[in-house]
């Protein structure tokens, strides 16, 4: 394992800092998993019994090997942790890792026998793989610009960390009907696909400035895509965990367990109706004692201290170099910062023709170095499978960009058509019906060529290799779903979906396309958009204005 200086945690990176109790907890959890592996190998646990236990430690059995999914709590990590992930990729995998839409990282070529050691390497940098899978409360996700964005009313990392601790090995909610995903955001602008989550929390402030929470419930994708519905308009801070407990109590008692496609909370909420579900939650709240579940202000204060602003310099406004490639990167891949003279920089993991979300060990190490040099050693993972340096001085953006370019990480496409979300698909996944990665690569190259000629603007293409919808295709402006059609890979296309404030489920445009035809179909859709668009109009807006007909016509008209 690398020596201590290698793993020195940067002083001003605002990750939650473990204390001795947190470290002891992780050590105990690894010891428990070692014991479970030993009992499995000794035949004391059946595979049926062992499976949920390994899943709750992040270990999946995929097509070719085990996959270890490592938690990156709410997508926040420091440079020492990223270096350790690079070390793990090189030591126990094939030299790369895959960042996911759940703000986690997956290692796709894991051997079971290595897992306890991998978990120990993670624990050395206060990381783990707890509850990255299984029918339990998963990694809480949040806004990759948390603590940096000027539009934030309160810091979502504070409440995401409180949820992380509350949900870790929860005695009552570890054997739920199905997985449970919570997203927290601190801004009105929904950058985290809130309404696709089982529970979505939005931080608000009352007129007196006190923090409270708007809560949506019952969102989800998969076979039955449903957008979450409003449950509470303003839950006071002290009541936060009580309300979470109440929601989970109702779900654990009444969620379906016989059919996994009907087991998510979205089905329960849909069947009971929002008001019916709310009545049950309120019944729990009425009976639940207040004091044991009260989120005390001193607790919030203690957690908030972990996420204090780093020591920003009083930076002057600067004119940036005029290099057009750099200017394009600044335009697409930086975001405004609350601190004058700073910006947030997005590192695209979507090179044209590449594999969405993959990073090599060398790239991770280069990024750790750049984060130390230009961003307080702090990084974020976004649900769009990109990385972010949240706090970069504007007068250092050019140096950062040069460093990124040297590492092959300067693709200027955040939020653009080539910034595609894709699941691992049939290249790795045991659930998949069709390949996602090569489809994504083909589409990326076509979209890039169109974009260069026609400036497509903001465009979200999302690809899933099966109905479980890990690639978020339901909420893609252009969504692509791989299916099995008489033993061959086929792809259904949906149009008009969106993940954010204008959230919508995409509509199926027509019959599916074969593996060799789907990239051409996407090009046809975009050429139709170009022919009909008004000046500056995004694909999504053109589609919503003119409807399906012109696209259908272009795709299916007999030549």
């Amino acid at each position, binding site marked *: 394992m690398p020596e201590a200086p290698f793993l020195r945690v940067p002083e001003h990176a605002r990750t939650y800092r473990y204390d001795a109790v947190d470290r002891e907890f992780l050590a105990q959890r690894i010891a428990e998993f070692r014991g479970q592996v030993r009992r499995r190998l000794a035949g004391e646990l059946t595979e049926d019994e062992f499976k949920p236990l390994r899943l709750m430690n992040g270990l999946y059995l995929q097509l070719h090997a085990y996959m270890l999914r490592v938690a990156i709590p709410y997508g926040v990590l420091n440079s020492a942790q990223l270096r350790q992930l690079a070390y793990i990729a090189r030591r126990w995998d094939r030299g790369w890792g895959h960042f996911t839409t759940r703000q986690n990282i997956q290692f796709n070529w894991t051997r079971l026998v290595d897992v306890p050691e991998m978990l120990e390497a993670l624990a050395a940098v206060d990381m783990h793989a707890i509850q990255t899978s299984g029918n339990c409360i998963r990694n809480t996700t949040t806004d990759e610009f948390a603590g940096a964005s000027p539009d934030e009313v309160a810091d979502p990392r504070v409440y995401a960390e*409180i949820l992380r601790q509350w949900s870790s090995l929860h*005695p*009552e909610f570890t054997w739920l009907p199905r997985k449970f995903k919570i997203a927290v955001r601190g801004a009105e602008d929904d950058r985290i696909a809130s309404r696709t989550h089982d529970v979505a929390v939005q931080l608000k402030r009352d007129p007196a400035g006190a923090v409270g929470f708007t809560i949506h419930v019952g969102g989800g994708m998969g076979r039955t895509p449903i957008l979450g519905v409003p449950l509470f308009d303003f839950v006071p801070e002290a009541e936060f965990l009580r309300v979470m407990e109440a929601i989970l109590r109702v779900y654990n*008692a009444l969620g379906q367990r016989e059919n996994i496609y009907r087991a998510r909370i979205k089905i329960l909420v849909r069947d009971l109706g929002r008001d019916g579900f709310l009545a049950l939650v309120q019944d729990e709240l009425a009976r639940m*004692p207040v004091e044991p579940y009260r989120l005390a202000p001193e607790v919030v204060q203690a957690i908030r201290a972990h996420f204090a602003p780093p020591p920003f310099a009083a930076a002057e406004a600067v004119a940036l170099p005029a290099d057009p490639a750099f200017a394009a990167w600044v335009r697409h891949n930086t975001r405004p910062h609350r601190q004058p003279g700073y910006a947030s920089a997005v590192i695209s993991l979507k090179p044209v023709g590449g594999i969405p979300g993959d990073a090599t060990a060398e790239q991770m190490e280069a990024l750790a170095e750049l984060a130390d040099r230009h961003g307080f050693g702090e990084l974020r993972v976004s649900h769009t499978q990109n990385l972010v340096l949240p706090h970069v001085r504007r007068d250092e953006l050019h140096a950062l960009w040069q460093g990124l370019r040297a590492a092959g990480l300067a693709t200027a496409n955040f939020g653009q058509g080539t910034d595609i979300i894709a699941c691992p698909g049939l290249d790795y996944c045991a659930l998949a019906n069709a390949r996602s990665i090569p489809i994504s690569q083909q589409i990326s190259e076509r979209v890039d060529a169109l974009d260069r000629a026609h400036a497509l603007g903001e465009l979200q293409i999302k690809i899933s290799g099966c109905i479980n919808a890990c690639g978020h295709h339901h909420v893609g402006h252009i969504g692509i779903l791989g299916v099995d059609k008489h033993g061959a890979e086929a792809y259904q296309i949906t149009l008009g979906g969106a993940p954010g404030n204008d959230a919508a489920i995409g509509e199926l445009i027509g019959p599916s396309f074969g593996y060799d035809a789907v990239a051409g179909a996407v090009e046809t859709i975009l050429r139709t958009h170009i022919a009909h668009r008004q000046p500056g109009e995004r694909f999504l807006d053109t589609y919503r204005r003119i409807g399906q007909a012109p696209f259908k016509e272009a795709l299916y008209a007999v030549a």
Partner: protein
Amino acid sequence: MPLLEDGRLVADHWASVADGPLPEGAVIVPPARLAEAAPRNAPLGVSIGNDVQVDTLAPWLPRLALVQVTLPKSKDGRAFSQIRALREYHGFRGEIRVAGHVIPDHYAMLLRCGASTVVVPEGSDPAVWRAARRVVSIAYQHAQSAEQPLALLRRRVA
């Protein structure tokens, strides 16, 4: 089947009676037989399925010395909520016994929800259950059991 309490195998003084005549002494019956069994001058227990809302037991709880809950499959966690509700909502102080497909990896969490005893398979080694109970001794949540009842977040700032 052997009975586990506090990590040790203990004698079981209860008879489970689904149907047929009620024997002398302590009996565990299904909810439908509570009215029949309650007037007897002997300890009374009930065995409930995991789809039963424990509120429906409320009228009987003062008379009951034991409630048995069941995990039909190891991954079906409804009983955890039933146990917690019995302790927290109803203040039930009697024995809560867990039957069905229980594995040692459930044990610590069952106890934190408020369970008392577990019906374990024949030939179970109590040492394995004791080890599973102790291996993760730190818990972040409020519990119904006497150990660490306060959430870790709160203990830290206390």
